[in-house]
C-alpha cells in the first residue's frame, strides 16, 4: 500500500522550535559500523529473533521449497505511521502476505528493508519493530533477511519500509485475475473502505470522531482453506487495496476479458465508514482495504466458499456482490439501490475529500 505521502492535510505543525531528543536515529546508525550493529541487534534482532537472521549473514539460505515458488514485493510509505487498527509495521507484513495469498500461495518468509530518516524517534522505531514481530508471529512467517539505511533529515518522511515475500503454491493450483469466467460468482470477504477511512480521518485536518479502524489483517489462512477445499473451482483472488473494490473489479474484468455486474445493495459498508464517506464526498467503492479479498469462484461452489469464509473472523461478513458476465470485455456495471445501472470505472487519481 502506497498511500500518497506528499499531500498535506493540514496536519504538519512546521514549528521552527527545535527540541533535542537524545533517543533519536543518527546518521551513524546507518553507517554500517558499530552503531548500526547495535541498532540492528537492539531493535530488530531482539524482536524478530529467528535462525535465518541470527547469523547476520549477507543473505538467507531458505533450503528446498515444495511446489512452485511465488515471489512478491511491496513498499510502504503510509502517513500517518500509526493509525487506528494498525501501523506501518503490521501493514508491511500483512500487505505482502496478502499479495502472496492472492496467487493461492502459502507464505514462507519475508525480507524487511527499512529506510529511516535521521532524527526519527527510537521509541517509534521500537514500536514499529514490535508490531512487525507480532504480525509475523500471528501469521506464522519469519523475516529471513533485512537491511537498514539512514537518510539525512529532510530526505525522507520518517520511515519507509519494503518487504518482499517468498511463498509456495502446489503444482496443480493456479489462481489468476485472468481466469474469471462468465457465470462465476464474485464474493467480497467483508466491509469496504475501512482502511482508507481510518487513514483519512487520522490526518488531523480531517478529524472526525468515530469508531474507525483499519482492516489490516493477513488473509492467507482463510485463502488456504478455500484453496484446499475448492481448488479448480477457485478462479481469481484479488485484494482490493489502493483504488478499492471498483478498481480491482475493473482489473479482473479487463485481464480476464469478461464483463462484471455487481449489486449496490449487496455491498457491505460499516455505517461509520459510510457516514465519513458522505461527509468527505468519497465513495467506499474507491477507498483502500488492507484485509479484504475478492474471490471469483464457479457458481456451483459459491455457497460452499461463503460458508468456509464466514467460519473465519476475517471472512465473517463475506457476501456475494455480483457475477461475471460474457461482456462487453472489461466493462464493470452496477445495479444501483434504486434499480438504475451505472458504469464502474477504475480510479483516476488519489481520492481527495471534496465539499463541492
Amino acid at each position, binding site marked *: 500500500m502506497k498511500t500518497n505521502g506528499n499531500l498535506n492535510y493540514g496536519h504538519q505543525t512546521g514549528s521552527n522550535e527545535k527540541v533535542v531528543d537524545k533517543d533519536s536515529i543518527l546518521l551513524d546508525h546507518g553507517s554500517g559500523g558499530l552503531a548500526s550493529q547495535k541498532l540492528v541487534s537492539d531493535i530488530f534482532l531482539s524482536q524478530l529473533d529467528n535462525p535465518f537472521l541470527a547469523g547476520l549473514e549477507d543473505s538467507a539460505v531458505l533450503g528446498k521449497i515444495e511446489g512452485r515458488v511465488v515471489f512478491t514485493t511491496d513498499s510502504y510509505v503510509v502517513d500517518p505511521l500509526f493509525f487506528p487498527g494498525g501501523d506501518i509495521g503490521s501493514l508491511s507484513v500483512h500487505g505482502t502476505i496478502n499479495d502472496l495469498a492472492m496467487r493461492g500461495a502459502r507464505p514462507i518468509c519475508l525480507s524487511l528493508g527499512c529506510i529511516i530518516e535521521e532524527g526519527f524517534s527510537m521509541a517509534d522505531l521500537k514500536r514499529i519493530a514490535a508490531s512487525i514481530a507480532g504480525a509475523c508471529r500471528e501469521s506464522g512467517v519469519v523475516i529471513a533477511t533485512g537491511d537498514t539505511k539512514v537518510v539525512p533529515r529532510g530526505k525522507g518522511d520518517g520511515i519507509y519500509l519494503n518487504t518482499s515475500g517468498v511463498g509456495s503454491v502446489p503444482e496443480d493450483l493456479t489462481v489468476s485475475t485472468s481466469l474469471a469466467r462468465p457465470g462465476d460468482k464474485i464474493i467480497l470477504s467483508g466491509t469496504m473502505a475501512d482502511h482508507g477511512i481510518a487513514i483519512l480521518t487520522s490526518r488531523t485536518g480531517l478529524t*472526525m*470522531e468515530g469508531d474507525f479502524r483499519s482492516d489490516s489483517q493477513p488473509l492467507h489462512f482463510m485463502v488456504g482453506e478455500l484453496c484446499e477445499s475448492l481448488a479448480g473451482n477457485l478462479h481469481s483472488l484479488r485484494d482490493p487495496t489502493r483504488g478499492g473494490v471498483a478498481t480491482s473489479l475493473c482489473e479482473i474484468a479487463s485481464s480476464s476479458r469478461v464483463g462484471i455486474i455487481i449489486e449496490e445493495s449487496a455491498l457491505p459498508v460499516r455505517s*461509520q465508514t*459510510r*457516514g465519513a464517506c458522505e*461527509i468527505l464526498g468519497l465513495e467506499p467503492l474507491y477507498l483502500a482495504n488492507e484485509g479484504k479479498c475478492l474471490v471469483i469462484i464457479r457458481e456451483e461452489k459459491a455457497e460452499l466458499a461463503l460458508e468456509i469464509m464466514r467460519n473465519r473472523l476475517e471472512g465473517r461478513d463475506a457476501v456475494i456482490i455480483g457475477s461475471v458476465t460474457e461482456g462487453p470485455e472489461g466493462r464493470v456495471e452496477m445495479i444501483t439501490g434504486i434499480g438504475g445501472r451505472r458504469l464502474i470505472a477504475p480510479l483516476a487519481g488519489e481520492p481527495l475529500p471534496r*465539499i463541492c
Partner: protein
Amino acid sequence: MCLAVPMRVIEIEGVEGDFSTLAKALVEGEGVRREVRLDIIDRWPEIGDYVIVHAGFALHALTAGEAEESLRLLRQIAGNTDQRDTEDPV
C-alpha cells in the same frame, strides 16, 4: 455543487445571539461525530434537531417532524397512499 449532509445535534456550545464567543455544536450521523460552527445557521437548533452541514458549518436546522413532513409530501406526489400515512382515510 455543495455537498451537505444532515447530522443530529448532540451538544451545543454558546448562546443564541451572543457573538462574543464562537457558537459550535457537536453533531452526529451514522456513528460519526464532528464539531460544526453555528455562525451562519438560519435557526438556533435544539438538541436532537438535525442540521445541514457543509464544509464545517451548519446552514440550516430542521426537526425530525419537518423531515417526516417532506417524506409525506413525496409519498403524496408519488400517489403512494401508504398505510403508514395515518391522515389518509382508508
